[in-house]
């Protein structure tokens, strides 16, 4: 019986990881909240009705209700870690986009560069070459 519980636990971890690691959105948020609610109810009921948990635990082949609850806690925690990681990565991506936009805007864009950015040395191919090089427009895009 214990092996059944172990298999179920591993399966639950895999399913949770699968859902947490891919996709996001309202449906996943709802699932997360339902799971959280189930966990809260389980935790609260264990305080008042420990014998139910022990019975349930025996059903699965686990000795004590407290142990069963611990397993649930571990599962929930792993789920929490996975979602936090995902959220953190998403947030990091957003911050990066913002910072990148700010950085590039502040630098004034690349087209200002040849004239403004390198006054120390005349850069032959750019200044005089630009206007006549524009109309044909063939060579640069030949690739």
């Amino acid at each position, binding site marked *: 019986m214990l092996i059944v519980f172990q298999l179920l636990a591993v399966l639950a971890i895999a399913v949770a990881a699968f859902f947490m690691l891919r996709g996001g959105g309202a449906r996943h948020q709802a699932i997360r909240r339902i799971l959280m609610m189930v966990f809260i109810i389980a935790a609260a009921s264990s305080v008042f009705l420990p014998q139910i948990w022990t019975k349930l635990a025996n059903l699965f082949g686990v000795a004590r209700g407290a142990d069963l609850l611990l397993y649930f806690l571990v599962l929930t925690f792993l789920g929490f870690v996975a979602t936090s990681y995902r959220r953190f990565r998403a947030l990091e991506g957003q911050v*990066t986009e913002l910072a990148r936009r700010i950085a590039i805007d502040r630098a004034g864009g690349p087209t200002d560069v040849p004239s403004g950015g390198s006054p120390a040395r005349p*850069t032959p191919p*750019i200044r005089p070459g630009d206007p006549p090089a524009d109309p044909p427009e063939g060579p640069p895009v030949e690739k």
Partner: protein
Amino acid sequence: MARTWVVVPMLNEATVIAQVVEEVRRAFDFVVCIDDGSTDDSVAQARSAGATVVEHPTNLGQGASLQTGFSFALADPQMTEVVTFDADGQHSVADAKAMVEELRAKNLDVVVGSRFLDDRTEIGGLRKLILKSAARYTRWTTGMALTDAHNGLRVIDRDLLAKIRLRQNRMAHASELIDQIGDLKANWAEYPTHIIYTDYSRSKGQSLLNSVNILVEMLFR
């Protein structure tokens, strides 16, 4: 007019950046340094040497710096290819120049540097082993038979660059870049490059332990 932008991600490189930029500017007119929140005067040094500097308002990581450089270069309609070049002076400008010529001559999408194609680069045994394993892993996951998956010197054509989007801000960006190149079925070639391991580049470079971080970041994207 073909125009090459050299993208140099930098973080606290004030002691060498001016020299590196000057050397690069002898061969390339357009150099952009992406400053990733340096606390020394890297920015002023790079500017004085003639580079355009794009400053991240906060430290984001080297991968993010590269992508910022790519986005910046793509905003220049005349840009035809970019060169990625490390700020610590471990690459040779002559190699970069030759790689750009190779890309144009053979009409390639990307040319990746490799320190293992000839025996110019002197490298420690453990470092070599890890880099070789990384290359083997890359070959296994992307089917690209690279000999050196973590070389900072690359030349990327504009059309390919526009399709690349680096999301790995920190260390795993080198693998991510290769992954995307593989997925896009790009025409690629390797080119033998010389890595100069100075005391400076060694002290700034990646600790070998960092390969653990790279592995974890690759597994949990």
